């Protein structure tokens, strides 16, 4: 599945052994760790081993400083202010939009809408594009591995419009059943929504191939990039999608800011979904006209400090570079599969041939919450639960899994600590 613009450079599978060009030489993980103050803290008397990056990432000092600096010296509301501080804040906010556009390969900053996060970005498309476009009998095609945030907005709009929601199944390995997906795609399909990387399983979907097939049928394509944007270089044009949604806080930026990329000609035709300040051209008591995108979709005061912090986070990520990031994260995942997979009683959940940064597993006979509590006692932060992907859990016939998810600041020693911690679980519950 060649997928230029989204996969690891060189087209190698994500789970292939780290190449001889040892990623450790491309950057120093120790130096990177020093950029993240929280990584030097202790939890329950143990050094923090943070392996819940798919939930949220930690923040480098530069991001923390940028937010502090904005509030200390640059805070004002944007637009409309006729004073210097407001002008500066407006410029900084606009520059942040430009920075995001460059990060995602968008053609213009007008294609970048700031939202509260991925969830709001998807809801925006469902409510604005969906309400205007979907008719009774139209079909929306999702997959059975979606996060609830890329499922429920479609359930809601299907109910509101009479459209039909279809979900392509996944295989025993946790991969999208491509044959079934292609069979479900039809001339009735108006919108395809698919996660780039599964948050519960780490599966990397062949989004480029799906987008091409969907657009050939005249369907609009939304990619949930919450899990992919932190791990893969994104080029929305190369992916061939119409919408791409991601979150700032998983990208080493602050919470409260996310991004919707939307192709200009689509955004231009979409009605507002929330009304308020900042999104209008003119207003009378009877009716109003709308601002052009992206302002049309940013009613109210946006997350200004957060957008500025996100731009600095993207500088940080690009400073390391995705070549180094994917190589190091591949090495971490590879080692984790090896060590965790070899721990007695552990069963990996989701073994897709192409995946990234996420390892889901269960310990036979011991509930994930109990395993998580033992790991927590060792200072190891993993997630135990259904990961907002209940259909995925149901598919595997389990209520929950443990999920370790990696970032470029994790170390092989941390992966080893995870495996040791899992060894202790049997001692406690044996």
């Amino acid at each position, binding site marked *: 599945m060649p997928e230029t613009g989204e996969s690891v450079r060189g087209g190698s599978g994500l789970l292939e052994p780290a190449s001889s060009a040892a990623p450790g030489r491309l950057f120093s993980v120790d130096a990177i760790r020093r950029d993240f103050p929280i990584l030097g803290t202790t939890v329950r008397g143990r050094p923090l081993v943070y392996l819940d990056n798919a939930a949220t990432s930690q923040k480098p000092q530069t991001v923390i400083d940028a937010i502090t600096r904005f509030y200390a010296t640059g805070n004002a509301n944007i637009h409309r202010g006729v004073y210097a501080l407001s002008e500066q804040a407006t410029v900084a906010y606009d520059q942040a939009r430009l920075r995001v556009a460059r990060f995602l390969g968008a053609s213009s900053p007008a294609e970048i809408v700031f939202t509260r996060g991925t969830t709001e970005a998807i809801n925006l498309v469902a409510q604005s594009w969906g309400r205007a476009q979907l008719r009774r009998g139209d079909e929306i095609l999702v997959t059975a591995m979606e996060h609830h945030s890329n499922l429920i907005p479609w359930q809601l709009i299907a109910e509101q419009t009479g459209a039909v929601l279809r979900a392509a199944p996944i295989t025993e390995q946790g991969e999208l059943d491509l044959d079934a997906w292609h069979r479900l795609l039809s001339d009735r399909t108006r919108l395809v929504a698919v996660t780039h990387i599964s948050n519960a399983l780490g599966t990397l979907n062949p989004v480029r191939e799906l987008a091409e097939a969907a657009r050939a049928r005249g369907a609009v394509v939304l990619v949930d990039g919450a899990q992919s944007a932190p791990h893969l270089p994104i080029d929305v044009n190369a992916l061939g999608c119409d919408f791409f949604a991601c979150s700032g806080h998983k990208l080493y930026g602050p919470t409260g800011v996310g991004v919707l990329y939307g192709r200009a000609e689509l955004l231009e035709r979409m009605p507002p979904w929330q009304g308020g300040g900042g999104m209008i051209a003119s207003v009378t008591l009877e009716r109003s006209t709308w601002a052009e995108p992206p302002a049309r979709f940013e009613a109210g005061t946006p997350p200004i400090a957060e957008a500025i912090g996100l731009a600095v986070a993207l500088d940080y990520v690009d400073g390391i570079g995705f070549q180094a990031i994917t190589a190091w994260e591949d090495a971490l995942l590879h080692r984790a599969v090896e060590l965790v997979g070899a721990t007695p009683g552990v069963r990996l959940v989701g073994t897709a041939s192409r995946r990234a940064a996420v390892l889901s597993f269960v310990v036979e006979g*011991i509930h994930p919450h109990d395993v998580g509590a033992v790991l927590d006692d060792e200072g190891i932060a993993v997630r135990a639960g259904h990961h907002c992907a209940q259909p995925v859990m149901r598919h595997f016939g389990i209520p929950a899994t443990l999920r370790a998810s990696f970032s470029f600041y994790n170390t092989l020693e941390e992966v080893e600590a995870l495996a040791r911690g899992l060894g202790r679980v049997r001692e406690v519950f044996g």
Partner: protein
Amino acid sequence: MAGLRELYQNVILEHNRSPRNYRAMPDANREAQGHNPLCGDQVTVRLRVEDGRIQDAAFQGMGCAISRASASIMTAAIKGRTPEEAAELFQQFHRLVTGHPEAGNPETLGKLAVFSGVSAYPIRVKCASLPWHTMKAALDSPDL
């Protein structure tokens, strides 16, 4: 480790391994299902209430060691009590696991005291109390 041992006291681990009253109850006349949407835990509590007392109590379902042991010890603790007494015991248990300063005294709590460690893990309070909420719902439900 101290906290972890406080949470998973031996009695809890033992009840998790061999839960009491884990069975269907064909002659039950009250039943309720409990579900914790945050973690997917599910428990069904069945009771036989006759002559103003809980004559029998049983549970089935899936959950973590805390919720399983809690259900096991609860079903043993409420047998023979009136619904009012069971509700009062729930109150005391809830005060215990939420670290309320007026948690019940060890004598009335009996075996339930092994859940004292839960209060240091607020996220696990729901695990411990799910069977109790479900039992209360079963008591409040109409006869089957």
